[in-house]
């Protein structure tokens, strides 16, 4: 396993906190299970028969060149594609064994359990406090004291508390890009999801902010199941336990991150992770 060592020395120099991501113990459970998933945008067939588990309380990275379907796939996991005209889903996506596309599934309830962080930080045009409290409020939390505690806990959880605790009434737009993205993560934590989907959460951030978000992802993985789409191969290697490689709407290879990055079975996967295309 000399190549593994090479990858890890590379990643350590970027993130001292990164530990070996080889998952030695078999994962206890799958938070989500996807099988035979087909997705269409009108006539265009964007995903073909995807089959993939999402292990519980692990970080799963989705990589692949632009337009390969990884973001589309991510958005099928909390039905964000429902709002797109002409989108059609076939196949099975289960959360704790329940089909999320079954008749009678409450999308609101699903999204409470499967939260999402977007590519560009998208704080609401309101104060920091109200941004975090928005989720709990829409789900019926009214008690001021409960909200205060929740806001503090989520800001601490997203490693933002120390920077903003002085003035929570400030507009969320006064924060830097990296802080805004951590605010968006805190906002997701506030609805207490089981799974957090992240769609290239660092692509609009500087390296320093990226580093902090990556640390945060590692911390969060002890409590939450995380699925992250990334264009950044090093990032996938640094933060994830499992990796899925998408190409032209197919899941070409899925496995432990250490295996995908050092000894992939698929030739195109190898070409991509070694930087020969993409």
């Amino acid at each position, binding site marked *: 396993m000399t190549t593994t060592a090479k990858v890890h020395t590379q990643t350590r120099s970027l993130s001292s906190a990164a530990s070996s991501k080889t998952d030695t113990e078999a994962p206890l459970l799958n938070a989500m299970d996807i099988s035979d998933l087909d997705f269409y945008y009108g006539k265009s067939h964007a995903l073909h028969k995807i089959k993939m588990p999402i292990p519980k309380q692990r970080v799963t990275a989705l990589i692949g060149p632009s337009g390969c379907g990884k973001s589309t796939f991510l958005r099928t996991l*909390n039905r*964000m594609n429902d*709002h797109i*005209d002409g989108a059609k889903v076939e196949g099975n996506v289960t959360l704790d064994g329940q089909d999320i596309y079954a008749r009678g599934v409450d999308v*609101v*309830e*699903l*999204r*409470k359990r499967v*939260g*999402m962080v*977007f590519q*560009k930080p*998208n*704080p*609401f*045009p*309101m104060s920091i406090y109200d941004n975090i409290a*928005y*989720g709990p409020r*829409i*789900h019926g939390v009214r008690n001021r004291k409960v909200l205060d505690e929740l806001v503090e806990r989520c800001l601490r959880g997203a490693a933002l508390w120390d920077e903003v605790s002085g003035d929570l009434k400030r*507009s969320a*737009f*006064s924060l830097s890009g990296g802080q805004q993205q951590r605010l*968006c993560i805190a*906002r*997701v934590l506030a*609805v207490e999801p089981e799974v957090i989907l992240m769609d290239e959460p660092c692509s609009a951030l500087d390296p320093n902010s990226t580093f902090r978000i990556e640390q945060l992802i590692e911390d969060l993985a002890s409590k939450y199941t995380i699925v992250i789409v990334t264009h950044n191969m090093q990032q996938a290697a640094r933060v994830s336990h499992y990796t899925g490689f998408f190409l032209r709407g197919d899941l070409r290879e899925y496995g432990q991150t250490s295996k995908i990055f050092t000894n992939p079975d698929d030739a195109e996967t190898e070409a991509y992770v070694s930087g020969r295309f993409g």
Partner: protein
Amino acid sequence: MTTTTLHGGPSNVKARKATNILMLALCSMGAAVAIAALGLVLVYLVTNGIQSMSIGMLIHSANVMDPAQDGLKNAIVGTLILIGTASIIGLPIGILGGVYQVEASGKFASTVRFLTDVLNSIPSIVIGIFVYILVVVPVSKYANAHHLTNVSGYSAFAGGVALAILMIPTIMRTTEEILRLVPVALREGSLALGATRWRTMFSIVLPAAKSGIITGVMLALARIAGETAPLLFTAFGNNVFSTKLFQPIDSLPWSIFINATQPGVDSEAKAHAGALILILLIFSMSLITRYATRKSFMEDK
């Protein structure tokens, strides 16, 4: 003289420069003519209006018997009541209709959008006749049948309905356009937290679009404040001070129209003063809008 260019072809730089200057001059002239028209109207209104203005114009209602006691108070208050009534009816319908057009898709929604545009282009006097048939005649019949002497068919209410119908398409259209400008990311951020679509609309999207919508509303109000035709068969006009919803009511445009068509220096002066007051009213409405919406949460980065 032909000079050679880098790629060896003949140079037409001079001709191109000349065209450039010509086009710039034409565009500037167009802008100048437009501004000049506005400027002339304003200068004419202000010079004539100020000569005719007096405190009496503001504190007295119309009085045909005594020019010293003649004024526009009833017209000013009437215009405000008409605008208020129109807003109470038109704002909720217009804004909710705009929200519908953003949220709904499909045949019905596009039909609604098309019909809104048609409504927007209907001459305002036609709206006036429509409201005359829809409101004035039935109310008048009802009042006669029940001997309600204090209820008239021609009324502030009927005028308000006519003005509301005029402002609804404008407000619907601007609301829709402003709402579409709100980034999809904001909407998705809220949906991804488990918010319903209406919750997302009313808690996130509408507040983010607030200042744009207010501007649209103010433009619509400014437009209806100066409408005369739809009031002819609805609010009618009233030479006595009135604030009653079901009585005829005076308004500035009406009063300007009546006075400008009467012989006599006093009437002419009153029309000029009325025009100045109307312009100032509309102008201050847009100033207040500017001031109130100068800073929104979206902008203070």
